[in-house]
């Protein structure tokens, strides 16, 4: 059997979901026989490839770059998994939403900055009006809430998907878990 093409991406999240992924420990070795990690912050691929079977997506969609990335991921991926609360419900990144972009940038780059007080206009991608859950931007196939979801939860989701089944995530994890 050919190996499943798996990817992971990291949008507006703290990398905790990726840490939890790594916490699968020795089970990663077992998974390595069944999957090929074709794109991830954990590997070196620079361009998100075509024909990805499953992509685990961490983080909310918070800036223009996140949005571009998730649109590309959706177009090139069969099963898109919202991994963790930021992806599922925009979680901590959404706590800026009630205040508006202008006030948030002012707080971060002017009020709280000691040097070079200015709001960046280049290199750093502009924030979207709200940090949003991924499913508000593109279709999501599997939701895995949790902050972060446990390694056991992620292992369960990945192995179920590899076996061709849709995981029942409510039995393994919840918002805030």
């Amino acid at each position, binding site marked *: 059997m050919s190996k499943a093409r798996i990817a992971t991406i990291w949008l507006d999240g703290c990398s905790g979901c990726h840490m939890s992924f790594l916490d699968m420990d020795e089970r990663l070795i077992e998974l390595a026989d069944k999957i090929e990690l074709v794109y991830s912050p954990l590997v070196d691929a620079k361009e998100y490839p075509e024909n990805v079977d499953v992509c685990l997506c961490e983080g909310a969609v918070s800036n223009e770059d996140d949005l571009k990335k998730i649109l590309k991921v959706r177009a090139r991926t069969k099963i898109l998994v919202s991994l963790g609360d930021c992806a599922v419900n925009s979680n901590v990144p959404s706590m800026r939403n*009630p*205040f508006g972009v202008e006030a948030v940038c002012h707080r971060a780059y002017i009020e709280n900055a000691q040097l070079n007080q200015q709001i960046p206009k280049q290199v750093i991608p502009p924030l979207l009006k709200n940090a949003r859950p991924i499913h508000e931007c593109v279709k999501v196939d599997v939701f895995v809430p949790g902050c972060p979801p446990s390694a056991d939860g992620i292992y369960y989701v990945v192995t179920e998907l590899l076996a061709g089944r849709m995981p029942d995530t*409510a039995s393994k994890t919840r918002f805030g878990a």
Partner: protein
Amino acid sequence: MNPSAQKTLSVKTLQINGKDVSAREDQTILDVARENGVFIPTLCNLDGLTPVGACRLCLVEVKGSRRLLPACITQVQDNMEVSTNTETLVKYRKMILELLFAERNHVCSVCVSNGHCELQAMAQKLGVDHIRYPYLYPKLAVDASHDRFAVDHNRCILCQRCVRVCDEIEGAHTWDVQGRGTASLVITDLNQPWGTSESCTSCGKCVQVCPTGTLFEKGRASGEMTKREFLPYLTLMREERV
């Protein structure tokens, strides 16, 4: 249940999910369902407080009624045919929960009640793994003016347990609700900072019955706010003295 009901109560017979059950006439559908081990999800309801039907999570279908009825405030009637788990109900319950999440800023991961929250637990129990409605992201305040307690309106589901426990059990009626619909807010006294309330006895009952992390003890970090169940004991003691 109701201590004043010393007069003889007649017995009603009805069906829940096709099974014959009997009930006292003063019981609600929820009471009878629970007595018979039938699960109906609830949030605003709390044993020992007058039911108000605020959350609508306990909706059931009753044959012959075109509306869905809240089980916690609907009294039993002879020959009622109640269904508690139809496709429609499962669908509406999820919708109700999702709307509660969409209405305020519920961030479970950083909430004092993470792991001890009835809203969070109910979402998991009913299989709500994401919210299909657009979030409102209202800008809401946190009032930390009280010496020992704080209220974070971002997490309130307007169940009114705090209002009822303060009025019915403590007898202070510090809490109330102002506004309409999604703009409603729980308030203390005449909508003034909690710390300046003259009626508040600082008993903390409201904090203990709040199903979410809205009302909490100061000094609790994320996940540290656990609640004590004291109402069954208080109501029992009071009934015995009647």
